């Protein structure tokens, strides 16, 4: 395990307290002096303590068990996109490295294309037309994308690391933040790009809670 090993880079790590303690305590970088090693340990101890209070919408275990000891859950969400009902991109933000950075024009094209594909997929189902919701999950080797469409036609896209659990919860929470900090803001014009400082602050606090 490398010395600059970062616990937040590990996504769905499940461990028991004993194992965890051994790993952390004995995995100090060898070449450090005692003082800096102590500091290193202290840092890790703090990280561990904050880590156990996992901020936990992600975790489906019952609260006392999961949050205290059993799960270290770090959420790796790469990006969040919001599309208005006409398929225009109104919000785009990268949170973790992992996706190629596109030009703003390309993001607009991506949004428009996805909007079209979503419209087609929502009509493609042969069985019933009432429950057709269109494209919801898109998986590839390097990422998974979750789409959530509100009743008014706004779409929320969340790009995350593959095998990321409970992405639908994340999307719902983003929707909740959107309805709080964007829709209740009197300076926001509907269907226009989102420039709300409160929304960005709360969104990044939710998606990157420990950084």
């Amino acid at each position, binding site marked *: 395990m490398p010395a600059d090993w970062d616990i937040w880079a590990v996504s769905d790590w499940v461990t028991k307290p004993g194992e965890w303690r051994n790993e952390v305590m004995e995995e100090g970088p060898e070449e450090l002096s005692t003082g800096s090693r102590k500091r290193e340990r202290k840092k890790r101890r703090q990280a561990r303590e904050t880590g156990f209070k996992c901020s936990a919408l992600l975790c489906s275990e019952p609260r006392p068990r999961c949050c205290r000891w059993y799960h270290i859950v770090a959420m790796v969400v790469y990006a969040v996109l919001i599309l208005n009902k006409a398929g225009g991109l109104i919000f785009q933000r990268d949170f973790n490295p992992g996706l190629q950075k596109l030009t703003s024009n390309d993001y607009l094209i991506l949004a428009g294309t996805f909007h079209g594909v979503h419209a087609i997929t929502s009509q493609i189902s042969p069985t019933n037309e009432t429950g057709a919701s269109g494209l919801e999950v898109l998986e590839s080797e390097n990422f998974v994308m979750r789409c959530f469409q509100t009743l008014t036609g706004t779409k929320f896209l969340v790009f995350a690391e593959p095998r990321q659990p409970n992405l639908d919860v994340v999307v719902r929470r983003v929707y909740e933040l959107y309805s*709080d*900090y964007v829709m*209740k*803001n*009197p*300076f926001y014009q509907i269907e226009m790009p989102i*420039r*709300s*400082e*409160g*929304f960005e*602050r709360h969104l990044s606090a939710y998606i990157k809670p420990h950084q």
Partner: protein
Amino acid sequence: MNRDTSPFRPASTGASPTPKHASLTASTNLRYSLTRKSIYDRHLNRTKTSELSKSAFAFLFGEMVQHAQKKVYGVQDLEKKLNQHGYAVGQRFLELLLWREGRTAKRETRILGILQFISHSLYRAIFQKPADTLEKVRENEDEYMISDNDPLVNSYISVPKEMSQLNCAAFIAGIIEAVLDGHCFPAKVTAHTAPSDMWPGRTVFLIKFEPEVLEREGLRHGST
């Protein structure tokens, strides 16, 4: 006979047996409840401890800000408008608050007393928490500051960059101003954003008393 021959006759005439307000009593609308009592018939203490949906308030306040924005030319003007809205609320609220205090209500005669009243009683009555700090401006004799770490009215509002001077808590400043005026402490109250690391939305209400208030304070209590 006559009735049948005129098809263009309006459905209801003056002679119709049902009185006009029958529909009002039959169904609830905003002004009349089923029991035909308006909110003015209720006891004033009835809503003392009841709570209001924060979202509903946020939408209402948002609409208020948008409405005020239509008729103004600048940030200063908009703040003044919000301040006026708050002033109207404050005048009424002070009356209600003193009525609710009943026999324990006291007429504040000192600056410190009235400021305590605002930052505790008034703030608690409106927001269910006291104001966060109450300070005196060191340089100026007539200026005081009440700060609120996260004003309720601003909790969902993000002011755009081009209007960075604006603070919608001018509404609360108006309430405070009205309460001060009602207690015969005429003052100007303004809201300023003073963000700190922990509280990005921290707001300071700067209270500047008129000179006659200080003069009176000096006459009454100056020797002590």
